């Protein structure tokens, strides 16, 4: 039943967003007759609505197809990876399950920052890489130039690029041939014990967790009692299968192959991507290398928005929705919090900004709850001195949790290595932006005659809000970036607090560099002044560092709010206007008697002028 290891190829497709990864995957499925043309019309590997809407893949899946080459049938397992940097760890696990990677580059747009980062991930995993220039059917395609970019930026020979149009099917046969001839077969088992790598897991309402794995050593069979080596949990396999791309049950999965298993696993918390599966009664001595727990780097709070129709049930509904969603995504964390301003809610941790947006959208869409989201922050490492003089380290996800300024020894923040590719004429602007964001210039290389790649070290806190939008704006949309979190770094950071109507609103406090604190505080007040609507009384806004006021603004009270003319013909329209006015307040939160709109809470991280 199992295929000879010589005739197996495991590979991933990696690409910058929109360079046509999923379309290419579909085209390969079609060429191997795994699906009909009609089925291939939609991107098959992306299963969630949200993924399709955003044009990205959130969950990796593995598909097994068969292709006959020179009279020999080969098993091709291709492992789809999430394209975004937030999921770098997941990408690296998916790549570890492969021997080769297909690097897709848009023949019109060329090498982008994400292409570089993904290619390096594949190189780090020692994969053989096939470069593919996609969309060669487009009028703007410049395959020769882009092939040179690949050579210059990534050191892969320009003449080895395969020209493909996933849309028309051109070059697909050649690509399949190259996959079989150039990519190595899986390595022979190194131990007689069973070892499989978990590279993905999803939650299914009916079957519980479905685990995607790659066999390295030995064989898994239906009914086997298995152990997750990292977590130390034991399960019993009730179903083994492969996606072709329709799920098909199999009795066993042998070395070099990929597949999925179901084993009555109730939550995603019981499974870790990167963990090693072995047999309970004959466990391997060593797990496969490279396992890491997911790292939440970006944090924000979710609160139910005020909804006086339902009153107290909002928090319960939010909790249910978060619990349900956590069955589907174990890489975000949550814990209940209470805020003076916003009442009861949850502090949530995410792999990155995109991950945060996805979770918020899914909660609102699938959980049918309305959420007030606070500004995202990063995870700080704070050293504090206790009364006895002992120093201990705290991990702080929220400026509000920062202890008294007197006890703080140091605050360290996560740093990123940021790669930016931009047309040469915008290099000066990009440089300015990065330096403004406390970036440290590292190096610069030519990607092509007209484009450059720059590398900076920038604090994560400086890029999590509007950095990307800024970059896009500065470079007329041509600049692309990618980042990788590197290490923690001590800096002179302070907490700036905001008081509205003399009440501190913790959800609006921020941590920033001391030199910029006064500026940031004042800037925030100016924004809040615009965001918070006028009330029937005067509202003072203040910014403070440790009790010292560093800025003040005042929102003047309404002294006049009256319609001059209101006669018989105005009744219905006027009534609707007044009703709408009240409805507009639904998404607001009260602090004392002040109504604060949700956007105001996002003003904290908006550094624009």
């Amino acid at each position: 039943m199992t295929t000879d290891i010589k005739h197996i190829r495991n590979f991933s497709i990696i690409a910058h967003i929109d360079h046509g990864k999923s379309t290419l995957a579909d085209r390969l499925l079609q060429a191997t007759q795994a699906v009909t043309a009609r089925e291939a019309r939609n991107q098959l590997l992306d299963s969630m609505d949200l993924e399709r809407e955003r044009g990205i893949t959130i969950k990796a899946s593995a598909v097994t197809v068969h292709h006959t080459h020179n009279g020999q049938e080969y098993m091709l397992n291709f492992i789809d990876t999430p394209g975004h940097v937030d999921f770098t760890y997941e990408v690296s696990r998916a790549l570890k399950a492969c021997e080769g990677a297909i690097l897709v580059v848009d023949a019109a747009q060329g090498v982008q920052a994400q292409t570089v980062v993904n290619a390096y991930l594949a190189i780090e995993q020692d994969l053989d890489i096939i470069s593919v220039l996609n969309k060669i059917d487009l009028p703007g395609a410049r395959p020769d130039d882009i092939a040179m970019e690949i050579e210059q930026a990534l050191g892969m020979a320009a003449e080895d690029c395969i020209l493909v149009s996933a849309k028309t099917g051109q070059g697909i046969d050649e690509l399949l041939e190259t996959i079989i001839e150039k990519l190595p077969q899986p390595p022979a088992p190194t131990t007689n014990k069973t070892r499989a790598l978990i590279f993905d897991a999803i939650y299914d309402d009916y079957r519980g967790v479905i685990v995607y794995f790659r066999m390295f050593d030995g064989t898994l069979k239906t009914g086997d009692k298995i152990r997750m080596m990292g977590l130390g949990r034991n399960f019993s396999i009730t179903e083994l299968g492969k996606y072709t791309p329709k799920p098909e049950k199999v009795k066993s999965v042998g070395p070099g192959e990929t597949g999925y298993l179901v084993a009555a696993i109730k939550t995603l918390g019981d499974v870790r991507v990167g963990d090693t599966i072995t047999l309970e009664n004959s466990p391997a001595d060593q797990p496969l290398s490279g396992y890491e727990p997911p790292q939440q780097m970006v944090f924000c709070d979710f609160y139910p928005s005020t909804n006086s129709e339902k009153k107290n049930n909002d928090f319960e509904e939010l909790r249910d929705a978060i619990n349900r969603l956590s069955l589907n995504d174990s890489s975000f964390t949550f814990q209940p919090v209470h805020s003076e301003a916003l009442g009861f809610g949850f502090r949530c941790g995410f792999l990155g900004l995109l991950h945060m947006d996805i979770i918020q959208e899914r909660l609102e869409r699938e959980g049918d709850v309305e959420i007030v989201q606070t500004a995202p922050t990063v995870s700080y490492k704070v050293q504090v001195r206790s009364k006895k003089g002992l120093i201990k380290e705290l991990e702080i996800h929220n400026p509000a949790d920062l202890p008294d300024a007197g006890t703080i020894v140091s605050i360290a923040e996560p740093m990123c290595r940021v790669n930016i590719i931009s047309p040469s004429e915008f290099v000066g602007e990009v440089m300015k932006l990065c330096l403004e964001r406390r970036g440290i210039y590292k190096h610069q290389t030519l990607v092509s005659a007209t484009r450059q790649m720059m590398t900076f070290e920038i604090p994560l806190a400086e890029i999590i809000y509007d950095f990307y939008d800024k970059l896009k704006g500065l470079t007329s949309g041509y600049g692309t970036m990618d980042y990788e979190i590197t290490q923690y770094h001590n800096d002179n950071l302070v907490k700036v607090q905001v008081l509205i109507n003399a009440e501190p609103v913790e959800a609006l406090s921020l941590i920033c560099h001391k030199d910029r604190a006064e500026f940031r505080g004042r800037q925030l007040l100016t924004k809040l002044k615009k965001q918070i609507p006028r009330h029937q009384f005067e509202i003072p806004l203040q910014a403070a560092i440790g009790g010292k006021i560093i800025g003040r603004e005042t929102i003047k009270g309404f002294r006049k709010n009256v319609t001059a003319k209101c006669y018989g013909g105005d009744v219905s329209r006027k009534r609707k206007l007044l009703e709408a006015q009240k409805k507009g307040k639904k998404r607001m939160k009260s602090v004392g008697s002040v109504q604060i709109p949700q956007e105001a809470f996002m003003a904290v991280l908006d550094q624009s002028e």
Partner: protein
Amino acid sequence: MAPQYNHIVLPTLGQCPSASARQVFLALKPQTSPARALYIHIPFCSHKCDYCDFYSLVDTRDRQNVFTDRLIRELRALGSFAPEPLNSIFIGGGTPSLLDASLWERLLGELNDSFDLSRIQTGQGEFTVECNPESTTPEFLGILKAGSVDRVSFGAQSFEPEHLKTLQRLHDPDRVELVIIMAQDAGIVRQSLDLIYAIPGQTLRQWQRDLQRAVAIGVEHISCYNLTYEPATAMTARLNQGEFTPADEDLEIQSFELAGKVLGEAGLMRYEISNFAQKGCESLHNLAYWRSESWLAAGPAAAAHVGGHRYRNTPHLGQYLDFDDQGFAPIMDHEQPDTRRALAERLMMGLRLVEGVDSDPIYRAGEQINEHLCDQLRECVLKQIEAGLMAMQDGRWQLTDAGLLLTDGIVAELMDVVYQA
């Protein structure tokens, strides 16, 4: 294929009467008391003023005759639903004085035939026509007088030529005195002037002069409107283009207060946010709006309130002329009677009046909606009283002077209580 307005398919002739005013009248409950007020809209204008958001058009197709025929058919249809003597008629626009004299005679004659005008003719009612100073003549006023009109309202707006220019009004400010004398000579002794304040560039001193001049003319009723930038008007477009700086809020408040002071000293008391009158000379017709009474409506874009129904005649002259359901006009924005909505509207309109609203009928309506509503309303009112914005007197809820300036916010809160209950 008939065009569509707000999901209501307009009727073609003799068909689909569900979107005609006739259906509303047929649906009235037998015990519904007939309306005692009538509003008529004359849509013609010689040009469109920049601040105006009323329905009006500069007619280039000479449709005055057919319009009058059509209006008369509508009045006949409505007349059968007004068996009792009318308390008030108000003819507005547009520029009613632009309608041809012979057509006015036909229109007024028809009103006499189709409605009982006995109260109006014996001085217990009110029949107002809105006039523009530039197009008003003694002949015209004579026709009005002969047709039982006993009150005219002139759009003076300002006595400063530069401000009239900002508003794109065509008349010579001195003409206002003249037309008032004309009206007196014609025997129409009840007169009202409209003034506008907070015009870009207007000083408090200039506003004071306008008020004093209006007082000196000696009319019984004055309306003072804070200039409002209505959406989709030329004035708002000019504002957005930065053509001028709007008056600041402090000046608006000072102008509001100054109007109360200057007119009050002259015996014209504020009885509504923007309206002032000698005692007993308040506009009966407008009081019907603010007191949520019923009224009939005729002419394109005219809004009606009958037996709890609200609707608006089609705001399109062509459709108004073409579609005719036994005289009734095609309508849009029809709202069925609704206790909650009626209560919200009663508060919204009634609190504009200095006399305020009678809490008794409000409590009665509140009890029908929800057992807690009355308590919640009272609580909300008490909160406003504490803030000095409302007062309770003789079982009436009223806004204080400070409250009048904040009417919309206060009313929105009360309405919210009504809708959330």
